[in-house]
């Protein structure tokens, strides 16, 4: 750690990992409800477990992005953070607001939560991933703006690198597109049209800029490859991301009331979305192969390579599987979507946040890398989680193909629930693999507490 104020990243990373554990526990509850329908009913209905599962994911990734920015920006800008106090204050505001929101989901019926938080004044609740009460959404905007102010001021007073510019652009985009979550007309079609300006333009747009910046930063650090080379790659990758991903939004506009021409725009552009992810894979391996030093933190290098591979598979390949309109006509809104969602979020965003945590946490704890024993354990966590996620995805894909066949392609289509009963075996296998994922996560968390010989951090 080169600057004192980088230390503020640590609570953000710890909170991120804590919420990650919560996310997985609720994922297991939902997975079981898929096969034992009345499990925990009516205490935790499926929709509540799902809100907690997806909202925790979003919140912990945001904690991860913010922690990453607080760690990276002082080092890149070669100056102390504008205001570590503001960063600490926002940490607590975000954590308390997030915890209260999750408790609200769990403790009162959703309709009462809507009444309690005055949803009728500005109704924004009850839409997928944007279930947060309106006051929580306003809180998120305040926290993110304070964070952006802090980071932007730091960049302005210090050295401006391409990595910080790309990171800032991604983070500002995140804030700007979130504002569309406040637009909720009574026309469902318009609502859906702009809902995607938050959801798609986040995960297949500006978040990829953040992903690229984090990965580039870690690769510079662990490989020692010339910054000019890495930043050139970064620009080319994110250029491809926006060329394919922005018009690629059209792959959500096939069947929701929007004009038929989106089937062409969406299919053609989103079919190219794997390209930037493939470039990211090539980029990560290329830089590690051309490394000018052997960084003692081998776990961080593994996470960085893993991000390249798994984001390509999850976002790229599994996205392509169902992105062409004639295919999507049958797969839209099935377990195929769930399969893609799981591996894409894990491979791209979970893994890149764990990459930066893996690199930065030892530094924040005063050493260049963890002990060999701790790193081996972290790598066990890496492999268990990554391999289980591959299998979760494969089982959901199998469930999805069968579902599509039974319910949509067959000459005698089955009703939804009958088709679900037919594919139950794959939901059981998914749940079992989910348990292995949890074991991997526990091992990952334990690795932080494993001692052993360590090297002191370079000054």
């Amino acid at each position: 750690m080169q600057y004192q104020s980088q230390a503020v990243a640590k609570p953000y990373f710890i909170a991120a990992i804590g919420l990650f554990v919560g996310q997985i526990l609720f994922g297991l509850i939902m997975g079981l409800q898929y096969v034992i329908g009345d499990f925990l009913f009516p205490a935790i209905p499926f929709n509540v477990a799902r809100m907690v599962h997806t909202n925790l994911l979003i919140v912990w990734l945001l904690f991860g992005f913010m922690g990453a920015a607080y760690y990276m920006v002082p080092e890149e800008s070669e100056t102390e953070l504008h205001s570590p106090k503001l960063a600490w204050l926002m940490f607590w505001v975000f954590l308390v607001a997030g915890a209260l929101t999750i408790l609200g989901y769990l403790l009162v019926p959703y309709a009462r939560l809507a009444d309690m938080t005055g949803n009728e004044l500005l109704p924004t609740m009850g839409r997928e991933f944007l279930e947060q009460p309106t006051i929580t959404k306003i809180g998120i905007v305040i926290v993110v703006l304070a964070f952006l102010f802090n980071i932007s001021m730091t960049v302005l007073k210090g050295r401006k690198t391409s990595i910080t510019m790309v990171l800032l652009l991604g983070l500002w985009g995140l804030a700007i597109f979130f504002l569309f979550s406040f637009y909720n007309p009574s026309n469902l079609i318009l609502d859906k049209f702009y809902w995607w300006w938050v959801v798609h333009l986040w995960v297949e747009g500006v978040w990829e800029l953040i992903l690229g910046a984090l990965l580039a930063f870690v690769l510079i650090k662990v490989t020692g490859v010339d910054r000019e080379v890495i930043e050139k790659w970064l620009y080319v990758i994110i250029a491809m991301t926006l060329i394919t991903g922005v018009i690629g939004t059209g792959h959500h506009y096939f069947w929701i009331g929007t004009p038929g021409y989106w089937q062409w725009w969406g299919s053609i552009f989103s079919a190219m979305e794997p390209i930037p992810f493939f470039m990211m894979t090539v980029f990560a391996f290329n830089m590690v192969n051309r490394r000018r030093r052997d960084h003692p933190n081998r776990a961080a290098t593994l996470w960085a390579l893993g991000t390249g591979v798994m984001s390509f598979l999850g976002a790229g390949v599994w996205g392509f599987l169902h992105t062409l309109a004639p295919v999507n006509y049958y797969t839209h809104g099935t377990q195929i979507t769930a399969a893609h969602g799981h591996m894409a979020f894990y491979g791209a965003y979970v893994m890149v946040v764990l990459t930066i945590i893996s690199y930065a946490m030892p530094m924040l704890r005063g050493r260049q890398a963890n002990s060999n024993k701790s790193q081996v354990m972290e790598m066990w966590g890496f492999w268990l989680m990554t391999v289980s996620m591959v299998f979760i995805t494969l089982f959901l894909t199998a469930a999805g193909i069968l579902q599509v066949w039974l319910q949509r392609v067959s000459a005698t289509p089955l009703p939804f629930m009958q088709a679900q009963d037919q594919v139950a075996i794959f939901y059981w296998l998914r749940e079992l693999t989910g348990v292995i994922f949890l074991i991997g996560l526990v091992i990952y968390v334990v690795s932080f507490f494993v001692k052993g010989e360590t090297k002191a951090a370079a000054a």
Partner: protein
Amino acid sequence: MSESFTKSTARNMFWGAAVFSFLLFLALAFDTTAALPKRDHRENITPQVAHGKQLWEKNDCIGCHTILGEGAYFAPELGNVYKRRGGDFIKAWIQAQPTGAPGRRQMPQFNFSDSDLNDLVAFLKWTSEVNTEKWPPNIEG
């Protein structure tokens, strides 16, 4: 990548790509906005339909169901449920929940009033009349 392809070339390429993509996207969004009224039949969005959508959101229906294929995949598609089951069945079904059948997926009891139920049905009927390019493939959703 070759030496003649410099970082500033890459940066310019990125900015060009970003501006071009967003402008093209905005142009398409503008055209879509103009085309939507004929496809979504917004003239039929009565106060009942609008209230039905509010009830849909306030009870987080999308946390289990899909509507026009978007939402959760735990329970049936409801974009075309009006055509599949009809209004009376929908109302009776909602009132009968939860079934309490052991081991089966359960839907909570929401204690809707009669007029709430009518509004929900009005919302689902309006939704089923949107031009969705013939999706879903069949009535089962």
